[in-house]
């Protein structure tokens, strides 16, 4: 299992299937640290900014205990040697930006919610990040780095050693520490530095005779380090997105795993050393096996530098489509919180370097059926952008988009908007693409049959019409629902064009201020055109009368129509809070208002159609019946409106009100859980289908047997008959040999089972009796084994008697 802190939640992933197995919520603020309970590997501690430490059973996702500490907790460390206390980083009282490491005594008690305010400060002036503190071999010492100082505190001797490096940046060197880890078996501390060096400190008991050696490969800051379980290998990663493995602390032997996609943020090693994983800045976890091969990746929503494409919904997969890796388009499934696939649009090697001009994807549009995809890419140069319009066709056999037409420089200046004509019933011939550009024109692109027999494809796209209006820059475009009208906004004016003849039908204007967004009403409201202006007006024009129907004073940043209903969502931004208004164009009163939606500015929004219309209990959320609204804020957090807020408010475990954070992008730390147990389970799973039916029948007796502690069990000879009887009932009518085989199989199965159930039994018991219980289960399984062996012998004798 891989456990990862993600926003307010702790997520448990399966290492083998990449699936999110469990989502453990309950913290009221960002989860800052997670640590496996060193005394019970089925349990997990998590700390949060809300000042609580929670103990979880991550197998079942149950919170066991909550310890309230009080102050903000910025990091959490658990030690095997410290019996009932954990270490946390807390802000120092009365001082800003100074932090201290303190140990918290976890009070023992029966209840679920406990107070543990017993804090004792261990180290002062530590860094706030999890990576700045590391505990050494068997918890003998703690190392902390901040700035250019390394502090080592020995618990037994109560000795604090400080080592400082020079602050002078010579030859591009930068000695500031970025991370620290300790060797698991030896007295060795590895530190990463801002200039890419790794220093291995030794002999740091001695204030004077300390010594260090240097490993240097990274050209920029070392983001994180991790020692292997035995300490023979050291992994390091940084912005190069290359994982480096150092052998035996020597600078000559190193292995690389390059092209990991994006800068490495965290590195973690599984407790059995078989796997390691890296967490990347673009919100992805890569799992790597021990021979430094890429194994698999857990991919959430990729955090790209800038979402220029907007949130677009793929009509085919209902996935959210937006910028992913540089130059790529990601298809993100909202249901499974997974990336479906990533489409390389720019098809150029991305080179990581500050200040380099890169080509990136800026606009995306889908046709109504999702068969055509139009993308626009441009280089980052402001004055003379290198533009390319690409049209992709969805290839049914390849199950992906295939490039159909590439148009170089479709406009002379930046493309501001792009849309397809949405006409479901008219087939492919009516498909029209409209692009608007800052070069004051809008262009209409149509499909033409290719006459050239050598061409590989039958159709391609070409420009059909170029329209302009008074030499104003075209900013937005939008088709009406039936596709007969095209609205194009030119700075302050909205123009409406007939899509058959390309005649200018009428214009609307609401000075002052440029038009920011426009959209047509849907269904019953299709005669309305909605526009939002820069000066904070939302206007609704009636297309039949060509007059303003109503207008409202609202600083709209996002205007998004629901494709399945007549509702339109508008998100306004006013004095550091976003508010959501949902209205129907035919009436100026909003259907729904949600003030103070979030603190961040909402940049984009999208309605995603639901698979099946949801039954709404309250009138208030009726507009969310057919589709769900998603927002993307400027911190790249994706949010959605939840309709279940009322029920959720009743349960104490969840604090979420109306806004539910679906995917926060700042996972804070992670660690790899027990892999061994997973495999044991898997083995059991493999065996299951074969003897499934029989096992079920036998199971009550077996279970009873296995759940009883060993010391209360009667003698094995007494149990035997019951046990055998329980096994025999199901197969009276089978031939002797078959039965023998099956019994044998079953006994094996039972052995497997017994192992498994021991563990589960163990989990359910109180943790304080762990050691005792461990012994007991050990005895239990031994006695069982004996029993089972006896059964086998007995069985044969019984068969021969037949």
């Amino acid at each position, binding site marked *: 299992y891989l456990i990862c802190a993600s926003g307010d939640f702790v997520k448990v992933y399966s290492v083998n299937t990449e699936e999110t197995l469990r989502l453990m919520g309950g913290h009221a603020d960002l989860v800052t640290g997670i640590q496996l309970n060193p005394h019970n590997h089925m349990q997990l501690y998590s700390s949060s900014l809300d000042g609580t430490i929670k103990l979880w059973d991550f197998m079942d996702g149950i919170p066991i205990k909550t310890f309230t500490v009080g102050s903000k907790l910025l990091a959490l460390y658990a030690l095997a040697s410290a019996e009932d206390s954990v270490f946390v980083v807390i802000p120092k009282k009365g001082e800003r930006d100074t932090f201290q490491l303190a140990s918290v005594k976890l009070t023992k008690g029966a209840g679920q919610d406990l107070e543990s305010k017993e804090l004792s400060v261990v180290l002062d002036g530590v860094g706030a990040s999890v990576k700045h503190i590391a505990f050494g071999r068997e918890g003998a010492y703690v190392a902390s780095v901040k700035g250019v100082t390394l502090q080592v505190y020995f618990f037994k001797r109560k000795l604090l050693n400080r080592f400082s490096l020079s602050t002078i940046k010579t030859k591009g060197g930068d000695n500031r520490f970025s991370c620290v880890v300790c060797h698991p*078996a030896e007295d060795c501390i590895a530190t990463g530095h801002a200039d890419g060096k790794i220093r291995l400190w030794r002999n740091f008991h*001695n204030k004077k005779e*300390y*010594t260090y*050696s240097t490993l240097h490969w990274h050209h920029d800051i070392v983001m994180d380090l991790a020692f292997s379980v035995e300490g023979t290998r050291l992994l390091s990663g940084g912005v190069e997105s290359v994982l480096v493995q150092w052998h035996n*602390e020597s600078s000559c032997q190193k292995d690389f795993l390059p092209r990991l996609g994006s800068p490495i943020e965290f590195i973690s090693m599984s407790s059995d050393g078989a796997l390691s994983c890296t967490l990347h800045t673009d919100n992805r976890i890569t799992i790597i096996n021990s021979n430094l091969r890429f194994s698999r990746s857990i991919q959430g929503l990729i955090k790209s530098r800038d979402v220029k494409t907007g949130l677009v919904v793929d009509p085919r997969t209902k996935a959210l489509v937006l910028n992913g890796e540089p130059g790529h388009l990601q298809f993100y499934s909202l249901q499974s919180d997974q990336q479906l696939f990533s489409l390389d649009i720019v098809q150029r090697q991305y080179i990581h370097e500050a200040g380099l001009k890169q080509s990136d994807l800026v606009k995306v549009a889908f046709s109504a059926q999702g068969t055509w995809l139009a993308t626009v890419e441009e280089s980052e140069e402001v004055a003379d952008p290198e533009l390319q319009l690409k049209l992709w066709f969805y290839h049914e056999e390849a199950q992906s988009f295939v490039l159909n037409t590439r148009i170089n420089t479709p406009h002379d200046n930046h493309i501001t908007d792009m849309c397809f004509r949405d006409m479901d019933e008219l087939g492919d011939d009516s498909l029209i693409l409209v692009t608007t550009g800052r070069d004051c024109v809008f262009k209409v692109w149509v499909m033409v049959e290719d006459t050239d027999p050598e061409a590989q494809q039958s159709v391609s796209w070409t420009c059909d019409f170029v329209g302009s209006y008074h030499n104003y820059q075209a900013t937005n475009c939008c088709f009406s629902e039936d596709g007969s009208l095209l609205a194009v906004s030119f700075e302050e004016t909205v123009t409406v064009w007939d899509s058959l003849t390309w005649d200018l039908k009428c214009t609307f204007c609401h000075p002052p201020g440029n038009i920011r967004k426009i959209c047509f009403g849907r269904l019953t409201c299709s005669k309305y055109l909605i526009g939002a202006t820069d000066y904070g007006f939302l206007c609704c024009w009636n297309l039949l009368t060509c007059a303003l129907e109503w207008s409202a004073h609202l600083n709209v940043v996002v205007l998004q129509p629901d494709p399945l209903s007549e509702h339109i969502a508008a998100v306004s931004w006013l004095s550091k809070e976003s508010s959501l208004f949902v209205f129907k164009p035919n009436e100026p009163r909003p259907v729904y208002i949600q003030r103070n939606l979030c603190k961040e500015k909402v940049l984009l929004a999208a309605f995603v159609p639901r698979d099946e219309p949801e039954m709404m209990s309250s009138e208030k959320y009726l507009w969310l019946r057919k589709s769900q609204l998603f927002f993307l804020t400027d911190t790249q957090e994706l949010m959605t409106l939840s309709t279940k807020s009322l029920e959720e408010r009743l349960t104490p475990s969840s604090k979420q009100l109306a806004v539910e954070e679906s995917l926060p992008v700042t996972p804070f730390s992670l660690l790899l859980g027990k892999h061994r147990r997973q495999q044991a389970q898997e083995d059991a799973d493999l065996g299951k289908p074969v003897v499934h039916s029989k096992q079920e029948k036998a199971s009550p007796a077996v279970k009873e047997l296995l759940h009883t502690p060993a010391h209360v069990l009667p003698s094995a000879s007494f149990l035997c008959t019951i046990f055998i009887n329980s096994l025999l009932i199901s197969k009276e009518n089978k031939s002797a040999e078959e039965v023998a085989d099956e019994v044998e199989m079953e006994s094996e199965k039972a052995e497997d089972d017994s192992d498994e159930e021991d563990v589960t039994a163990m989990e359910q018991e109180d943790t304080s009796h762990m050691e005792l219980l461990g012994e007991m289960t050990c005895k239990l399984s031994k006695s069982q084994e004996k029993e089972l062996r006896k059964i086998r012998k007995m069985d044969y004798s019984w068969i021969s008697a037949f």
Partner: protein
Amino acid sequence: MGEFEVHRVRFFGLVPAGVRCLACHPRGDRLALARTDGAVEVYNFAANYFQEKVIPGHEARSVESLCWAAGDRLFGAGLSGDITEYDLSGLSAARGVDGGGGPIWSMVANSTGTELAIGCEDGSVKIFQVIPGGIQFERNLDRRKGRVLCLSWHPSGTHIVAGSIDFFRVIDVTSGQTVQRIMVNHQVEKAKRECVVWAIALLSSGTVVSADSFGRVQFWDWEQGTLAESHTVSTSATLSLAVSEKEDSIVVGTSTGATYQLQLLPVKLGGVEKRWVRTKPFQFHSHDVRAVAHSPTALISGGLDAQLVIRPLMEKVQKKGYDAVLRKFTFPHRRLVSCARKARLLLFQFSQYLELWRLGSTEETGKDGEVLPLCRMPEHLVQLKSKGPEHIYCSCVSPCGTWVGYSTASRFHLYRVHCDGDSVSLRKV
């Protein structure tokens, strides 16, 4: 302050000789250094690393190895096949004894300083006894094929390790037999290159430390013949190695000019288990570091770039002072240039010849720091080759510029210089 004309003398093309070997005095107050031209220098640590003595080189004598023995006696051995004792008061090579095994590649003295062991081209290791007034051949140890490039005594004096190409061997001194022969290149079979053991050391614990041309420093158990640890410190060859007296620190010189320190550190606090760890790299030299030495407080390295670098170990220096400063000896400490003030002549001393130059002159004056145009370029007047195989020890030109004198270790020469216009003639006096 008066006005000065500053001459930029860019025509003294002295090529200093590289450092070939270093020998630290066992008591740690003196350092002997041999250069590739055969010159031997003695530095005094106590007197602020002062260059006390210089014994000029000899054409027929190259020094491959130096060692201190029997108190303050300094012995050198070289490819000429002779073992030479240096007369430190008379600053000359005193007596030479033929080693009898061809060119000598290495020579070490035992810890008491009573015996010298030499490693020869023919693969023999010979023991010489140091007697008052000279040395005396004692006996031959087991001879194997392959030149012996490096030697090391066990501190107790019972065994010697001898490194040669592809292998090293451990020799029992009393019986003279090879007790262990260890191949060093068995791990890099596919490379099929020969692996030269450039330096070796035998520690009192019985560990053999070898530095080879694959850039490895390896620690062997000499009784079992097994490899204990291997540190690849460099991608190029490691050429030299020196162990501190406490045997807890090793300095290694490589052919890239970098030196590395390896330290014996406890694996755990308070634990018995210790391990060698490569700790500090230093890059002071531009070329091969042929010689390193380990004094109690400093790492000393000398390279083919003719630099001698003394890097103090900060943790061993108690107080801040002259001892705690990194020292580099780049310039020669002796006077190699003499000036005839009136005649505006400069005499440059090279190891085997002298050069007499006339300085350029100008008629203009200018402000501070201005470059004045020359009306007469500096002129090379004469090159005077010294006679005989001995190198020049010192030289001088008289202020009037008419007399030039130089001396070697054994003779003194005086010349009279006649300058008439452009023609210059020399006459031996």
